[in-house]
């Protein structure tokens, strides 16, 4: 690399400057990606609420409901499942839920679930195929069944 002064033609930028430009470009891309990440995650996320909070939640808005299925409340109807869900700690009022779509294997009374949906006239209507049931298993201190 001969020269290296300011009068080089632009095709042979001196390596120091070239690296600096590369660094700036890389950092710029990183910052842009990070900004997009932050921005979209706040707009794309759904709020998680427990049944006791949902009873007073805005109707129509979409939430992730986290809670425990009330034992013995599961009924299968023509348009899917009906059951009731309480807060994870078992306290508070329960909310009736309707849901259609795939039911994961571990789903049953007493299990913790996460379900995306909205409250319509006092009933939480789950979106199809959004039911997540926690695996039993594994590191739970005792079997609570």
């Amino acid at each position: 690399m001969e020269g290296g002064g300011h009068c080089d033609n632009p095709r042979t930028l001196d390596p120091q400057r070239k690296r600096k430009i590369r660094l700036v470009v890389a950092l710029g891309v990183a910052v842009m990606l990070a900004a997009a990440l932050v921005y979209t995650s706040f707009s794309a996320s759904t709020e998680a609420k427990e049944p006791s909070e949902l009873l007073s939640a805005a109707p129509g808005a979409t939430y992730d409901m986290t809670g425990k299925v009330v034992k013995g409340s599961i009924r299968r109807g023509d348009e899917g499942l009906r059951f009731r869900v309480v807060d994870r700690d078992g306290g508070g009022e329960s909310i009736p839920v309707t849901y259609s779509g795939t039911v994961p294997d571990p789903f049953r009374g007493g299990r913790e679930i996460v379900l995306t949906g909205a409250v319509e006239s006092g009933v939480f209507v789950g979106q199809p195929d959004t039911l997540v049931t926690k695996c039993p298993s594994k590191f739970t201190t005792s079997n609570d069944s």
Partner: protein
Amino acid sequence: MTASLGSAALALAFLAFVFAAFAALAGRGRTSLRYAAESATSGEGGRERWVLASRRAVYAACGLLTVCVLLIELAFANDDFSLSIVQQHSSIETPTFYKLSAMWSSQEGSLLLWAWVLSLAASLALYATRGKLREIVPYATAVMAGVGTFFTGLMLFAGGVNPFAGLSPAPADGVGLNPLLQHPSMMIHPPMLYSGYVAFTIPFAFAIGALAARRLDASWIRATRRFALIAWALLGFGLLLGARWSYTELGWGGYWAWDPVENAALMPWLIGTAFLHSIMVQEKRGMLKVWNACLIVAAFSLALLGTFLVRSGVLQSIHAFGDSTVGPYILGLIAVVLIGSTALIVSRLDDLRSPRRIDSLASREAVFVVNNLLLVALCATIFWGTFFPLISELFTGEKSSLAAPWFDRYTTPLAIGLVLFTGIGPLLAWRRVSWATAKRVFVVPSLLAAAVGVGLVAFAGAAAEPWALALFVFATFALVGLGQEFWRGATARRSLRGGSLPAALVGIVSTNRRRYGGYIVHIGIAVLLIGIAASSSFQTNRDLQLAPGESAEVDGRTVTYERPTVAVDAQKFSFGGVVTVQQGDRSFVLRPARRYYRPTGQQSGTIASFFEGEATSEVGLRAGLGSDFWTSMAPDIAAVQRRVRAADQGFRACVGGEPGTPPQCRAVAQLMRAAVANPQLRPVALAQIERLQTATAERIARSYLSEGSVATFRVIVDPLVTWMWIGGLIALSGALIGIWPARRPRRRLVADTELEALKEAKYREIRDAELDHAAGKLSDEDFALLDAELRREAIEILGNGNGAYGIGEQTEPAKQPAEPL
């Protein structure tokens, strides 16, 4: 007996780790070979002795933990319910295979597994580096023993997680293992992931050792590269098994859900991938030292984070592991690791600077840097998404979570970028490639990739899924490029050595396992990504409500629900269906079913209790290279359950001898009354009741066959999904080729001396360049320049060898330059 013996062994293992850590630190410091030799003869090698003692203490801890694991396994095999771990996770009826693997279904058992695997890996690493890396090893030993101390200490002192906690008096039977977990891959999957997590400890420990001892050349990398590769392969295999289990067993038909626990295992794997690439740049060019140190610290911290996440309950996950007491301790360890390592790296920044720079963007190292950035960006995205519930709670006070579409939006383009670079990287030589050469190597892959792209748009309508199309095109580029590499390498070898083409292929792979093993991994990953893209973009997913005899059309196939099936035994009710699928003149039969179990640990009770335990889907799967046909079944059992409730009521009335019950009830009622008076009759009465109950259950089950109720079938046609598993296995075999020690005795886990290793690496580099030249990847001018440079560096190393490491006495005979291919 087992409890006290085991607790003692565990406590001794803890003490051995504590001793190892302190002894290693006592033995740290600069020691030369000469000093070691002198001190060994004169019998006062203080430091060397401490180091030796610390190594032996790690071996001892390994032995003691092996005893612990054996004791637990024996207790499981012998149904020793005086141990709470056995009582909670096994029962007399549990199949032996699951008894032996039930250890890691428990919190305490999995911690023991962690500590045991760590002690094995640490012993192996210390055995392989004995007498080498003298300045680094003491610190590395201290780090590994420190981590060992932490995990054994956790079991002993955290409370509630001692695997040898006893139960007194010992119950007659155990609770048993959850039927959902009774699946072969579920038994291999956790230990694979654990071993992967644990194996990252070794390169991390040696990196810390190198930083602490200021020995910042590539020696620590050469010593632990295999461990990083093993960690990577185990973690990858564990992820693959988990995906497979989800696909075939969980009844929802997917293999990945961006669940926090899945992400927790994926993140260290991604960083590990970046690390395995960037260490090559440090080995060959002495660059990226800070970056490599940061990557291995990140990989180890993420491995710890994965261990933490499954035990903390801080994030909502499919894997509910329950809140446990050990979470905060692991978090503490992560904090210590992060703060300590960062401080160490910052304090060594001056030593870590490399005088070299990347010569050209058209070079393998430049591509490695780009792939590293992509991998780290991928990991950062997943990290943000995984922890978003905590982040949003911090800023908005509301716990919000991100679903799969958000993850897909970012991971898809990054994955596409990565697959492009899996193709570009292998085509470029180290240091610099002239554009003319690069163009020559790129022609065939680019043309074929473009042709595939045009073909897919024209004949398969792939334009509707631009992301998938881009991935197919780039993956084709990568596969063709890699194929070209094998072809050129093999023909170059043939022209030099003769022989057949297959022999030449085997030859280049076995003499250059690292390079071609890596290429095979690349092929596997490209194939795996094709499978993922095809199955997620072109999947047909339908829910069918069918009565027996009815049919429906799905994606050109006629699906017929022929007839229901049912089976009852002491553990479960199983409702299934015979389904035929007709496509053209080919047809096959699938038998999906749904099983209803009694609650785990319950052997008897009402018939209704069968519906109070787990329910599992038995998936009907027809796998094919073109597409998979997947179906699960949800029977309508409302009528059955009504009949079961009625039967239970009748049964109670019958056993109670209430008036109006049928005549055979009277006999049972009499027997029951007699049994109350005479306990010896109890088993007879219970057996009688069970017989009656079973007969009733079977009658009810049969009624299901005749009622012809509608069942819901979820039907998925998944194109090319089989290639995901095939690609994963190809990648795994490539990693095994890279891990496998070469036959030549000179290349053991670690070369004999550092100088040896350095020379070895340089010779290999020269050979690589010759191969690249012969294969047309380097132009004559480029090769001449590079070869001269490399030879100059090799001579420098030989010159430095005399005296540089205190080994100067024996002079190295001038080695002939690298042997031809």
